[in-house]
């Protein structure tokens, strides 16, 4: 294997025939004898499923010769929780609380794609109010920033750069403060609901968003300064985990990995949803197709997302007081949430209305919350640009109040198939970089 760029994990000597032994503990002469006796026999190493560098519970089976990986297999399924099966036993609205827990780093992207699918089945896509769409875009972009920061941060941590991780997580926490203020929860929000969003942004949300933007930008600048010109960082990432456009297309890889190979494919541009066509933003691309370019792209995308977030703040300000849920009372979730002295709960105004003023309102609330709404029979596919790539959902309804089938195409599940081509022929240490650059979350991969 020839390397064009200087590389931090290469062998000490250029001689490819030089034997190389690493061992922890034991008598060196015995280890050397043992190695000589085994000769060129291949070694299979299990990395994971509890390895800290595998982004959760991923098992990587490596066949190695010295420090060189000759074959890689990924074993998944350790985090399979039957979310798709469970969704078949809950109402369409409750489905949101399940799918948000799949890829727990990009919760709201999944809520969004699921709700867009349900709305398509219901035929109410165009009835979703403008303000709800703004809030959805806001949440999707904050989620994207959070997801990319985790990708970059944990990627840095796995290479030994703890500061990269802490800086990224501080910035992510800033996005969480806004998300928590609006949805009530940091992650697993169940905020985006069929027909709109669970509740309107509270007072002061626009101010909080505007205060958050420079804070996150500063941390992004720090991450850029810390990493992109750093010789060790470049040594570890440049020319590592290469995947060209042909490889991406063969393996169906989407998201930052596809864009790092030169194809500016982004569903926010090619099939705009929630009014993305009205926002001003760029889709960064590269032609290097290596791990380094993907870090650059993820950071650039964060800056672009912040631009969208700023535009969302302006629109939220302009649309103050407008509805955030479809007008159809047969679909719209009846209750609004509010923050009381004992924390968040159902709005007291709503409780007073159903318990004290209107029996019909109580019946309506009860029917909609326990029974749910019926969705006409049929099937749809809906797809959005998740942080990690094309996130799709196939929904089938039997005309009832529960999904007949909900199947998610998690981009991480698909992209993880590329692990072999990204790692084979490289160094063992680069496997960690390759896993980080795929940026899958095993909760989403296994569902």
């Amino acid at each position: 294997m020839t390397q064009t760029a200087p590389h931090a994990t290469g062998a000490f000597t250029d001689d490819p025939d030089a034997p190389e032994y690493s061992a922890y503990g034991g008598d060196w002469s015995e280890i050397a004898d043992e190695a000589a006796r085994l000769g060129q026999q291949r070694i299979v190493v299990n990395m994971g499923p509890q390895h800290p560098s595998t982004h959760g519970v991923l098992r990587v089976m490596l066949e190695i010769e010295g420090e060189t990986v000759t074959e890689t297999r990924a074993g998944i399924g350790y985090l399979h929780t039957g979310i798709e099966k469970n969704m078949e036993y809950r109402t369409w609205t409750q489905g949101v609380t399940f799918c948000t827990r799949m890829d727990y780093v990009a919760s709201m992207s999944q809520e969004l794609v699921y709700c867009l699918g349900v709305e398509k089945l219901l035929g109410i896509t165009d009835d979703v109010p403008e303000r709800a769409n703004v809030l959805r875009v806001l949440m999707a972009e904050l989620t994207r920033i959070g997801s990319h920061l985790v990708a970059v941060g944990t990627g840095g941590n796995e290479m030994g750069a703890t500061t990269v991780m802490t800086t990224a997580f501080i910035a992510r926490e800033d996005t969480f403060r806004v998300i928590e203020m609006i949805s009530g929860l940091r992650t697993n929000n169940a905020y985006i609901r069929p027909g709109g969003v669970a509740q309107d942004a509270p007072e002061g949300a626009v101010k909080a968003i505007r205060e958050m933007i420079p804070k996150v930008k500063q941390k992004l600048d720090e991450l850029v300064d810390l990493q992109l010109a750093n010789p060790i960082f470049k040594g570890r990432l440049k020319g590592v985990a290469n995947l060209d456009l042909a490889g991406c297309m063969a393996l169906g890889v989407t998201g930052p990995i596809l864009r790092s190979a030169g194809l500016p494919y982004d569903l926010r541009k090619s099939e705009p949803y929630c009014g993305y066509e009205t926002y001003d933003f760029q889709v960064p691309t590269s032609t290097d197709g290596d791990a380094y370019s993907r870090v650059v792209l993820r950071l650039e995308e964060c800056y672009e997302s912040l631009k969208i977030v700023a535009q969302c703040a302006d629109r939220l300000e302009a649309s103050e007081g407008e509805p955030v849920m479809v007008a159809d009372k047969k679909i719209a979730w009846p209750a609004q949430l509010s923050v009381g002295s004992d924390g968040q709960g159902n709005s007291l105004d709503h409780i007073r209305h159903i318990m004290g003023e209107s029996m019909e309102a109580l019946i309506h609330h009860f029917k909609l919350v326990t029974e749910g709404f019926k969705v006409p029979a049929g099937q749809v596919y809906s797809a959005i640009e998740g942080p990690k790539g094309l996130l799709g959902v196939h929904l089938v309804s039997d005309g009832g109040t529960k999904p007949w089938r909900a199947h998610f195409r998690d981009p991480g599940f698909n992209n993880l198939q590329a692990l072999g081509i990204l790692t084979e022929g490289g160094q063992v240490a680069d496997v960690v970089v390759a896993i980080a650059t795929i940026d899958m979350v095993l909760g989403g991969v296994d569902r």
Partner: protein
Amino acid sequence: MSDSQDLTGTGAPQGGPQPGDRDQITLINVRQGQFGAQGDTSGFDGLVRPVQMPGASERPYGEWFDGVVDVLEELLGDDAAAAIEHVVVDRGELTLRIAREHLIAVAQHLRDDQDLRFEMCLGVSGVHYPADAGRELHAVYPMQSITHNRRLRLEVAVSEADPHVPSIVSVYPMNNWHERETWDFFGIVFDGHPSLARIEMPDDWVGHPQRKDYPLGGIPVEYKGAEIPSPDNRRQYR
């Protein structure tokens, strides 16, 4: 195109309900009663409602759909009528119901022809329709064209008795894991797959968990003296 055509070639019993006079594409479910538990006092127990997928569409299909179907029919030549069983346009989406013997040829054309150019197959989603006698298991392939910015759906139906579908991994390598997942969860055998092993469930798992006759599992929970049944056994609206 006859709707009573045997889609599987296995002669699986065509029992079960065959209601309705519309062109039956897929019998999604036969819903009985109004509630999850039998023997309730509501009087809805005797209610039987078959639920169908939206039926086959007539030309013109609208949008770009006609053009794609035309090109595909031309490329398939004499096999076109046998390969494309139904064309359904519903909610702005095009679904092509494909006979399994022709699936690979259809996939090959969809990928390679410059007027079709569906570069990506976004996986395969299994669906189990136990009421749809003789074609209980469906494999649904969403196809994405980046060049033309289009998406369509291929659907292949097979019976539980003969759950074989040819693998399209030779055409779309990206479908490797997706087919393994659908085998794992639905027991659809993708013939020609390079290594059709379970992917999510343990290798020695018995059964295919996402089939409708596979229980959700779960145990009753006692809460303040009352016993709450597991989610799949609760009395609930359907």
